[in-house]
């Protein structure tokens, strides 16, 4: 009997700063309802681990934190693969990609396939390098500087002029109005995410977000552009509306070609009246709202799985402007026994509650 199609996936927490994993599962199961999913988790309380809906997972394994380095990750992946025999890997978090790229040749030897960008492309789009990338490709972007110490960062902030954003190299951004604020947030960010810490010009306008997938030739095979309609207090999109902006599409295609990117991406822009879109961030993964375009004809995660499986391309529809999403939080029911098993054993295969799968659409 052939092995079931199985993916391993990360980024399962859908709190107020939701990660993409659950949405990716949801989208993939819309086309592949029998897909088996192995969750790779950094925290037993990641909310997606407790879903019993279409985005449920079939097995859960805790991973070492990215700061532990690639060798410990490889050891753990070998163990998990030995038990689960998954064929495909879909990393959904920025901070883990360096390690996965390092161990990818070894994962390939195990028979695991993923669609990852090159290390060079990943580094070029890193927050600390994005300003240089924008300058060398004539792409408008906000003034951004990176520094390893607070004195240097303060000098950059003074040069830009307050207020400025202080940002971690992977996550978190704070708007600060003074040098005192800046120093405080530098310490907080450096403690969690390390250095460099970034300082960025604070610009205010409409935020635009493009999700897409690039093939091995750095061609954008599908994308969906939205304006953020609702934002959380930390600036995360909680609702969005599809736009039809061919110039923005061209800019995205140019960025992807310039980076020689392959795989999923999310590109964020800011737009002020009578000024071009400013490139704010390039994230090396699908965003948490990727299941929205999947429901209106542009199922990028399923397309990715098709590519990984070597299947023929399925046509992706262009998302119709005016379609919109609004995020809706739900309460999941779980049993402490699940948390106990996961916390003590570091793994959990099939829950005591049988998955109640929503009808696929």
């Amino acid at each position, binding site marked *: 009997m052939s092995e079931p199609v199985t993916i391993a996936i990360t980024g399962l927490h859908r709190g107020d700063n939701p990660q993409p994993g659950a949405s990716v599962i949801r989208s993939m199961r819309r086309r592949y309802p029998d897909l088996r999913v192995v969750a790779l988790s950094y925290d037993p309380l990641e909310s997606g681990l407790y879903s019993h809906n279409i985005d449920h997972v079939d097995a859960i394994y805790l991973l070492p934190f990215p700061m532990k380095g690639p060798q410990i990750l490889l050891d753990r992946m070998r163990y998990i693969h030995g038990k689960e025999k998954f064929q495909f890997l879909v990393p959904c978090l920025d901070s883990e990609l360096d390690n996965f790229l390092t161990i990818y040749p070894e994962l390939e030897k195990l028979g695991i396939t993923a669609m990852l960008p090159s290390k060079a492309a990943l580094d070029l789009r890193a927050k600390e390098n994005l300003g240089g990338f924008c300058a060398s490709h004539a792409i408008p972007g906000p003034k951004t500087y990176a520094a390893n110490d607070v004195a240097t960062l303060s000098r950059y902030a003074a040069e830009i002029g307050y207020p400025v954003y202080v940002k971690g190299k992977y996550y978190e951004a704070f708007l600060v109005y003074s040098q005192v604020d800046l120093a405080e947030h530098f310490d907080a960010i450096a403690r969690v995410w390390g250095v460099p810490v970034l300082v960025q010009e604070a610009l205010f306008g*409409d935020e*635009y977000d493009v999700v897409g997938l690039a093939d091995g030739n750095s061609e954008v095979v599908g994308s969906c552009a*939205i*304006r953020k*309609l609702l934002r959380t207090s930390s600036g995360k999109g909680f609702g969005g*509306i*599809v*736009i*039809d*902006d*061919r*110039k*923005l599409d061209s800019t995205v295609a140019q960025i992807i070609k310039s980076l020689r990117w392959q795989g999923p991406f999310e590109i964020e822009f800011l*737009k002020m*009246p*009578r000024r071009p879109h400013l490139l704010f961030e390039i994230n090396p993964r699908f965003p948490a709202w990727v299941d929205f375009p999947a429901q209106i004809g542009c199922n990028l995660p399923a397309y990715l799985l098709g590519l990984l499986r070597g299947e023929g391309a399925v046509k992706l529809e262009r998302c119709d*402007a*005016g379609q919109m999403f609004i995020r809706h939080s739900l309460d999941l029911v779980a049993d402490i026994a699940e948390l106990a098993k996961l916390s003590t054993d570091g793994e959990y295969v099939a829950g005591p509650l049988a998955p109640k799968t929503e009808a696929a659409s």
Partner: protein
Amino acid sequence: MTRNKPHAGDGGSPTTRYRFYGDQFVLDTLSGNFYRVTPTAGFILRRLVAGTELGELVNLVAEHFKIDRSRALRDVEMFTSELRSLGIIESA
């Protein structure tokens, strides 16, 4: 006289860029912004998007709302000025 024309943006023609939902709600598909407008503003905007020249538009407003032409001209100019500041129409 300034000639106003709706901004086509890059998503196609002005007629496809703007979508009307009844008389009082319009979506700009290029920017994703949407507006609640008064029936009068909706009347003017629909015709601007369809390519109606300003002079003809003033006549249409005067006729439709049964007001004199000078008042129609003032209303249309005030409204188009606001549209220009929002980047919805451009001066040519």
